């Protein structure tokens, strides 16, 4: 085969492979939405789930997912922010920094099931938290931290050094320079990272099966006492999330309309994640514009 023929063949192959991948994505999203959206109704979103009867909804699972996500962000964002600042600003160029960076890489590549099992071992069993939203949030934090930290570090490093020097040369402390000057400039990047990580956490199940548990007890949505066992805000109650619910429906198979509920739940999950994805772009751009007064560049 001469050079020109192979060029043509290769180009054709590359284009068709790309076509297949794009079709694959459309198929995946289309399949979920086409099969799922017909099941989504107000009733489906607002009624409790049923184990042995048809017609259950996903009210509690949906709420649990959101609550868990919020708790996770409350725990993980500050830690990631501190760590990101450390890596970008304070980390000396030495062995310890290298070790820490390695540790973050290791953490980011650990299978989520291992992270979940660690959470189970330490918090559910050793500390006696039991299956609870809090334990789940902690496990998701472990899962979230490395990516979030790296994202924050990169966003901070993207801010030109000149800004930092400007702050320092005015006699402002390194910390205040970081917090008041560098972080605001890094905010679009950081926020995009946080939203994307939220999307990931929202769909995560493997780390949650043995931490936040697989049951969704009936809770009282008008009880705001977070220490009360029946309160929807109690962080110490077990809480099955939407993703875990889908998994459970399809592995235990005692619910008669498991298939329909899975379809509906999957569609809800995908829609939420698409929104997160879209939100990350929109908000990132909006903040960027606001900070720079409409100047791109």
């Amino acid at each position, binding site marked *: 085969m001469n050079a020109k023929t192979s060029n043509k063949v290769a180009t054709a192959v590359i*284009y068709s492979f790309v076509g297949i991948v794009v079709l694959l994505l459309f198929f995946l999203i289309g399949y979920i939405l086409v099969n799922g959206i017909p099941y989504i109704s107000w009733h489906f979103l607002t009624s409790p789930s049923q184990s042995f009867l048809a017609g259950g909804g996903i009210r509690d699972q949906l709420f649990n997912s959101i609550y868990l996500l919020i708790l996770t962000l409350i725990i993980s964002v500050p830690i990631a922010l501190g760590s990101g600042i*450390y890596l970008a600003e304070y980390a000396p160029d030495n062995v310890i920094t290298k070790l820490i960076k390695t540790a973050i890489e290791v953490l980011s590549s650990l*299978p989520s099931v291992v992270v979940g099992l660690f959470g189970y071992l330490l918090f559910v069993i050793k500390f006696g938290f039991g299956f609870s939203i809090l334990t789940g949030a902690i496990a998701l934090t472990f899962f979230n931290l490395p990516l979030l930290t790296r994202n924050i570090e990169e966003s901070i490093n993207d801010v030109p050094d000149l800004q930092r020097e400007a702050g320092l040369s005015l006699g402002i402390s390194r910390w205040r320079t970081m917090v008041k000057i560098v972080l605001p400039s890094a905010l679009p990047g950081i926020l995009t990272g946080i939203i994307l990580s939220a999307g990931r956490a929202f769909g995560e199940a493997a780390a949650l099966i043995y931490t936040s548990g697989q049951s969704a007890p009936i809770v009282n949505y008008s009880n705001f006492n977070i220490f009360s066992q029946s309160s929807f805000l109690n962080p110490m109650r077990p809480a099955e999330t939407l993703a875990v619910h889908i998994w459970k429906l399809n592995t235990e198979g005692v619910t008669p309309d498991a298939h329909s509920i899975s379809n509906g739940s999957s569609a809800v999950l995908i829609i939420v994640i698409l929104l997160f994805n879209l939100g990350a772009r929109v908000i990132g751009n909006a903040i960027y514009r606001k900070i720079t007064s409409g100047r791109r560049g």
Partner: protein
Amino acid sequence: MNNIKKELNMASKETRQDSIGRFISYFCITIIGVLVISIIYFITSRGLTMFFANHVKLSDFLLKTTWNPGTLDSHGKPEVGALPMIVTSFSVTILSAILATPFAIAVALFMTEYADKRGAKLLQSVIELLVGIPSVIYGYIGLSVVVPMIRHIYGGTGFGILAGTIVLFVMILPTITSLTVDSLRAVPQHYRQVSLSLGATKWQTIYKLILRVGTPGILTAIIFGMARAFGEALAVQMVIGNAAIMPKNLVSVASTLTSQLTTGIGNTVLGTFANNALWSLALVLLIMSLLFNTLVRIVGNKGAVKNERKNKQ
């Protein structure tokens, strides 16, 4: 004048702010450090219990093919041969990487060499969306589309390594693709010009130059993809069949380390022998994850050596 002199020698608000800031950031990074160490410590110590407390031989664990930690065999020894799971885990990992790599490279090449800015951006969003889809959904689609399809074509249950491979293929495709894109983007733009000016076709430039220069990066991408495949639990668990037996072929039911773990942990009591055996599987997962990490580091360093030479001139 003396006032300024005094100020110069006094600790100020700024100094205090800095100490606080330093403390906060050191504290946060310490949390991460301690976390990683404790994960490794706890999983390792749990995972080793079976060997030390229950005196199972490592060779039995790694090489025997019967997994039935709840009962004893005819010699009164527990049956904890993890080989079926190890083989299955490696099979789905390697097969899915083999399947995904050409697609990933094709998409990456399209994005870096063929598409204009808009096309590349569009494909970038496709990749990001694929990353964003949760693994249970991949598992669910695998269960409701891939498994019946395989059943239809090959008969049997449809569950097995083939179904797992297909699901993992889609899951690791975006990982490998985006890292490959990074490594191809790192190949200096003017290499392409030089190659074309020497009379190379586009494909010759890609094949003989760009892919060659980008090889360490692409290898890293593939290893990352494999690491993800090896550690993926739920999606695989939903389509593999979950039978801890040696897979006979690609369409017979099997079980990976992760699927055995997810199904098993809930059905055993902590501290029992059956439970300890499961933690040993978790340890294998941990070790493999560390191994993949090391591999990435080694390959990455090889690439770095090349780059360093580049910078020297």
